């Protein structure tokens, strides 16, 4: 340190020492890069992002809640399997004499002998058995009759894939469909709310503890905002990707590969949409939080943003069978991260639709970030009473 001191005072003593960008770096140890405006913005943002990520990753609350969340997802998948009739216990299957031998001793199957097709249908309809296996003139030679969905164990037992005759098509995969749409909505809402609040909290804490003035003396407000959004987006995306990974593993392990085939692509789209959608929300959370100076005051300013996060969830839960609502949702930026993957899952979106929605979302995100940066820049140093939006969006009038 003393070497640095001498060096710098020597510089300072020189005639017309520029004291800034022109100061010769100070050698290896004390090196200060002659940063230009642009790169210092990026550098500052990265440093801020790094701090945000480290602060979260090191907090017990974050680690525990993430672990609980992942365990919850796994549990939901197992429960989903049960709801879909994929229980671990033996499946009761009615068999006509001609096919009884074929299924005798099959794993996970309890055969119930019935006389003919009529008796078999009656048994399925009454719920006495989950499925019935009949002879058929088709290629498979057998026909399976089920109430709602074909049990996996039975499908495995029949070495040739049989024709499935569904008696009640409307509710074909109601349970799975509901769980998946619900899942997308819930994951989006939970992640956006928790990381949005983290951003808001971090913004207000910096204002409340006044450390923000120290930060602003070192980096521009934009770098601070960018770093916060970046850091928390990385966290949120990481968590969402982890959820997706756990979901995939869960589906594979519980033998629901068929569901995976259905949700795999939508899940990837979900992660992509989430990444962009969260950046948009994060900027809103940060801008909203910058309007107040104390944690107690965050309620009113965050409520509108919270609604924007919750609405897609409720829409998808209540309207997941309403095509028009879903179509609109899949293009509106705030709900696209939930709406589009659900439509992809349901198979009623053309290949180009997610791309268009993504462009719309990205454009909206860019616009929101620009406005949020303006709000943040102008309000983050104002302490005391809540700053009104009209004060920061109009002509600049920052009070001390």
């Amino acid at each position, binding site marked *: 340190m003393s070497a640095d001191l001498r060096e710098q005072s020597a510089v300072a003593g020189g005639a017309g020492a520029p*004291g*800034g960008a022109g100061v010769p770096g100070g050698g290896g*140890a004390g090196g200060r890069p002659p940063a230009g405006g642009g790169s210092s913005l990026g550098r500052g943002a990265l440093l801020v992002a790094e701090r945000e990520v480290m602060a979260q990753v090191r907090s017990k609350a974050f680690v525990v809640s993430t672990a609980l969340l992942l365990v919850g997802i796994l549990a939901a998948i197992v429960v989903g399997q049960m709801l879909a009739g994929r229980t671990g216990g033996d499946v009761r299957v009615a068999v006509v004499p001609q096919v009884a031998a074929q299924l005798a001793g099959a794993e996970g199957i309890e055969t119930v002998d019935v006389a003919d097709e009529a008796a078999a249908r009656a048994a399925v309809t009454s719920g006495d058995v989950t499925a019935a296996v009949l002879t058929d003139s088709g290629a498979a030679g057998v026909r399976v009759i089920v109430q709602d969905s074909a049990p996996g164990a039975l499908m495995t037992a029949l070495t040739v894939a049989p024709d499935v005759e569904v008696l009640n098509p409307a509710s074909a995969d109601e349970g799975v469909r509901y769980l998946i749409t619900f899942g997308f909505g819930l994951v989006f809402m939970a992640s956006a709310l928790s990381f949005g609040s983290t951003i808001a909290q971090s913004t207000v*804490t910096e204002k409340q*503890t006044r450390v923000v*003035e120290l930060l602003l003396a070192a980096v521009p407000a934009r770098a601070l905002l960018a770093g916060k959004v970046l850091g928390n987006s990385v966290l949120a995306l990481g968590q969402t990707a982890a959820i997706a990974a756990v979901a995939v593993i869960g589906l594979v392990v519980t033998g629901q590969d068929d569901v995976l085939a259905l949700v795999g692509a939508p899940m990837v789209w979900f992660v992509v949409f989430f990444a962009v959608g969260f950046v948009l929300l994060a900027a809103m959370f940060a801008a909203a939080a910058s309007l107040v100076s104390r944690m107690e005051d965050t309620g009113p300013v965050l409520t509108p943003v919270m609604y924007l996060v919750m609405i897609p969830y409720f829409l998808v839960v209540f309207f997941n069978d309403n095509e028009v609502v879903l179509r609109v949702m899949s293009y509106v930026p705030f709900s696209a991260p939930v709406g589009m993957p659900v439509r992809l899952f349901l198979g009623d979106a053309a290949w180009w639709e997610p791309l268009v929605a993504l462009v719309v979302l990205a454009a909206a995100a860019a616009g929101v970030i620009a406005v949020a940066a303006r709000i943040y820049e102008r309000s983050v140093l104002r302490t005391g009473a809540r700053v009104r939006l009209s004060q920061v969006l109009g002509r600049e009038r920052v*009070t001390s």
Partner: protein
Amino acid sequence: MLELAGVSRSFGDVRALDDVSFTVRRGRLTGFVGGNGAGKTTAMRIILGVLSSDAGTVTLDGQPLDGPTRATFGYMPEERGLYPKMKVAEQLAYLARLHGVDRGAADRRARALLDRLGLGERADDKLETLSLGNQQRAQIAAALVHEPQVLILDEPFSGLDPMAVEVVQGVLTEQASRGVPVLFSSHQLDVVERLCDDLVVIAAGTIRAAGDREELRARFTEPRYVLRVDGDLGWLRDEPGVQVVELAGSEAVVEADPDGAQQVLRAAVARGPVLEFAPVRPRLAEIFREVVRDVPVEGKVAA
């Protein structure tokens, strides 16, 4: 040399700074004094670029300030604050890195500085677990950790315990002797008086007086002298060319021109031993009152 020239700033209808110009010289401690709302914090924030000015320029050695230059400034805001839940050394290193110091050097400097400020053992504790006095030291460290080229401290002594005041005084003197322009504001005029080389007095957003402390004192010095002898000074009342301001036994304050003063001294020496004879230098508090008193009433707009 840091120089403000014609800096103005309004908040709505309130003119917080009006054509403010002053300099902070290298190697000198410059005290910045003024009442609440006089514009000290606003001026400092403008120097740091945390706030923009409506008019005027801030230059360092003649160069207008830009981002990278400002990043080399050290700042202690009046509103103190660090991250309560972050470890002390870690957040100092973080702040140093924000100022452009690379990771390894930032960490080394943070720890070395904490050692010097007597906080070495608490380096890896969270800030909130430190006593208030130690938190204040950490705050001082935050302004110094990137070895600033310019030091701006807003009320660095307010709320400090006596030990920390000593530390800050030492730091300021040391930084100034490194050739760093140091500007600090304070309400504690006695500290400013003892410490600073130059003085800037601001009231209601305008600079009332600025310059070398001794020059300012001389300018505000009235032709008064204090005289203390071993004996009684009653005879002073009859001395020609002298106005007695105060007289208490063997001690007196008199008003006289330089010749008259020497005359009095000779007379005193002729009567017996003289223990003290000196011009009365006004205390900073008196200068401050003097300078700020003639603030026009309509000028008192900054709350």
